């Protein structure tokens, strides 16, 4: 039965399933589901430690956000270990990480954000031209709707009104942020 586990065809599918469960929070990806879909001829007692090993490897790679050099070194070490992986399996894992790295990383970033995120932004500019108290005024206003929400929760909509002065005040603050970002991103 070890031969079954060494076969690389279903490994790619297994890694996808493990990623769905561990990183994307997809419900219902059970051990039995993975086994029956991908390794139907392998008994559960053999499948369990195998998938645990693959899950562990995937989590280590994601947790360290390995670049390709680190990945190669790590996987090579895994092939040399007692009870490790084959070099064919290492190749499948390497290919998987290279194509899924960005998406998995994004998922991990979202998991660690506990404040609301900005989900949407729409705006328009109105030209107010009359009011009850003045005969005629021309004060343009910007109306902005911010859609914010926490992971897995419904959005909250915030509708704000800005006159020209306020727009420029905020703009000044945003340019301060931009400056900070430039300083942060400067190569050390």
């Amino acid at each position, binding site marked *: 039965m070890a031969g079954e586990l060494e076969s690389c065809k279903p490994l790619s599918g297994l890694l996808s399933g493990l990623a769905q469960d561990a990183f994307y929070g997809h419900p219902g990806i059970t051990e039995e589901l993975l086994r029956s879909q991908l390794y139907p001829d392998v008994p559960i007692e053999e499948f369990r430690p195998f998938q645990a090993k693959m899950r562990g490897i995937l989590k280590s790679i*994601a*947790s*360290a*956000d390995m670049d390709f050099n680190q990945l190669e070194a790590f996987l090579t070490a895994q092939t040399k270990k007692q009870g490790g992986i084959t070099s064919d399996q290492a190749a499948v894992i390497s290919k998987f990480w290279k194509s899924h790295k960005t998406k998995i*990383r994004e998922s*991990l*970033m979202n*998991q*660690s*954000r506990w*404040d*609301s*995120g*900005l*989900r*949407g*932004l*729409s*705006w*328009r*500019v109105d*030209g107010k031209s009359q009011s009850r108290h003045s005969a005629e005024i021309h004060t*343009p*206003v*910007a*109306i*902005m*709707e*911010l859609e*914010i929400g926490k992971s897995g929760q419904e959005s*909250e*909509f*915030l*509708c*704000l*009104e*800005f006159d*020209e002065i*306020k*727009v*420029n*005040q*905020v*703009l000044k*603050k*945003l*340019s*301060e*942020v*931009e400056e*900070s*970002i430039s300083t*942060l*991103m400067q190569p050390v």
Partner: protein
Amino acid sequence: MEGSREPVLDAKAELIDFQWKLGMAVSSDSCRSLKYPYVAVMLKVADHSGQVKNKSFEMTIPQFQNFYRQFKEIAAIIETV
């Protein structure tokens, strides 16, 4: 995140204060090597009854760039109206 829908004509709130923070997420229990910068914003807004509330949210750097770009667009338009 472009002007995707017309803002509804609800009671609009007024922005009293805008505070920001540039942070760097270094590590978490699910990822030891996060290393991503983010912009955290705290808005102080007053609704039509005068009640003041704090609203906070985070943006990734690309999200912030988009936010900034849209504000610049608003400023350019509001100047010409």
